[in-house]
């Protein structure tokens, strides 16, 4: 069954003065899909999301979100989206319960505020004034305010920045449960594992452009890229002693031998057959492919994460 597109972006550009924050991007997000924009700070992720949310006017291109033009800011549009901004305050003197209830009341079919508060893990902070919340707790309140309207489409702009690992995993579970309800999610993040865990598809952004797009497993062609077999050279064995048919892809790296291959199954068979026949153990034997992080660093041209 063909799924309809919840978000359609074609040729989107956004310039601030002479600086082009978004320099012509295209992507589609299907209904019920979780799509992640991954990239370093300043790549244009937030600008892109804020165009889709209706906060920014685009300089050029076409944008359609749930069949609406977000620029027009219609009430019917805002009733169907939920927004978790990267940094937005709340009234400091209201309690968690009061705020979530207040925001729920803006939407025609809100979720139960108490249930939403439990869902984000603020159950024991229900009656606390928001100024007493820690940074991570405020972020969870952001999430509660984003989902209390029971939106069809949820925007999450770096939702877990500043979270400790357990809070992050709980948020991931929450996002997972929203997906099971058929919600569409657009996520920005600079955490590789977050994109890998949550997203059906990922677009890597750098300098205002999408430099790669695909499922986390196939991104940057890493599913078809050459694998690397590595092992420690057994004592008393020289590189020249290894099977001749493998010799082409071999190189030494410190105390290990690396073998680049596009046919890892066959080559591994040759290698292990050779080792078994000679009764030597290949210590630290491993087969790896480029990680999402390798792909990311290569595509965004960053020297380190």
């Amino acid at each position, binding site marked *: 069954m063909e799924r309809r597109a919840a978000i359609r972006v074609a040729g989107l550009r956004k310039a601030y003065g002479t600086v082009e924050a978004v320099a012509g991007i295209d992507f589609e997000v299907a209904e019920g899909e979780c799509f992640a924009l991954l990239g370093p700070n300043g790549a244009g992720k937030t600008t892109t999301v804020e165009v889709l949310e209706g*906060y920014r006017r685009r300089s050029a291109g076409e944008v359609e979100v749930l069949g609406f033009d977000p620029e027009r800011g219609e009430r019917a549009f805002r009733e169907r989206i939920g927004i978790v901004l990267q940094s937005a305050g709340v009234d400091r003197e209201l309690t968690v319960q009061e705020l979530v209830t207040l925001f729920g009341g803006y939407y*025609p079919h809100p979720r139960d505020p108490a249930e939403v508060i439990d869902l984000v893990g603020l159950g024991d902070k229900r009656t606390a004034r928001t100024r007493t919340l820690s940074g991570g707790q405020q972020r969870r309140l952001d999430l509660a305010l984003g989902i209390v309207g029971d939106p069809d489409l949820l925007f999450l702009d770096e939702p877990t920045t500043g979270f400790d690992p357990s809070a992050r995993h709980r948020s991931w579970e929450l996002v997972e449960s929203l997906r099971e309800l058929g919600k569409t999610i657009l996520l920005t993040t600079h955490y590789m594992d977050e994109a890998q865990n949550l997203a059906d598809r990922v677009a890597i952004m750098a300098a205002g452009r999408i430099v790669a797009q695909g499922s986390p497993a196939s991104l940057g062609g890493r599913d078809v890229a050459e694998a690397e077999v590595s092992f420690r050279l057994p004592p008393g064995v020289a590189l020249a002693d290894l099977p001749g048919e493998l010799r082409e892809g071999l190189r030494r790296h410190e105390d290990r031998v690396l073998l680049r291959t596009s046919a890892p199954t066959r080559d591994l068979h040759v290698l292990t057959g050779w080792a078994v026949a000679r009764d030597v153990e290949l210590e630290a034997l491993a087969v790896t492919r480029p990680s999402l992080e390798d792909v990311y660093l290569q595509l965004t041209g960053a020297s380190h994460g």
Partner: protein
Amino acid sequence: MAEHRATGPLLLRQVRYQNKLFLRNPFSAFFALAFPLMFLLLFGSLNGNERIGTRGGIRFAQFLTPGLLVFAVVSTCYTGLAVGVALNRDLGILKRIRGTPLPAWVYVAARILSSVWFSLVSAVLMVAVGVALFHVQVVWRMLPAAVVTLLLGASCFCALGLAVAALIPNGEAAPVVANFTLLPVVFVSDVFFPTDNAPAWVAAVGSFFPVKHFALAMQETFNPFVAGSGFRWDHLAVLALWGAAAVVVAVRRFQWEPRTPGPSRARRRAATP
């Protein structure tokens, strides 16, 4: 498509939240209620019984009570909104609201109605204290004029507060701008003492700004020697003009997002390991 939330209940609920916020913020309550009340107790005790020749010989307390009532209303509406809205904009609260289906005008209207509500509360409080402690006389036949003057004045200063919030660059500048524009004007505007015998330039400066017109119109309704219903249409017209100009500025220049990459964002980044 899904039906929207009904506007009436939405507005009412928003006003209630706004009221709750006002009461939970000790500073806003202090400036709107305690500060003018303190002045009333102080000046009223010092020379509440002196007679003011230029006002038909009324007692000073009869002049001071409506004057400080005006001060309380202006503090609540003008200072309160200018500072409150600018700070909320800096914190990203306005931006967050903008992303919900709550119509923008409902949010702004709720803030105005809440300010007007507390203006009424402080007005009643001031008059009650004036009556109880300084034998201020309420001129009942001019009560409708007093109420109309109060509502028009409160609306005018709400609009001015929103216009200033729209013009100032950030929340930190807001209290400075609001107080610096208000306090000098208040002293030449018949709020604390009459300027009837003041030099011409003082009278001219005072007459240019709206506070004096608000004060004179309000004091008229508390002067038992004045005949008729107490409406000062000339002063009310000036208030209406200032209010209309402020509405134009506020509507044209109002922004929902922080002007600069906010301090809240820098703080959050700094807190991230």
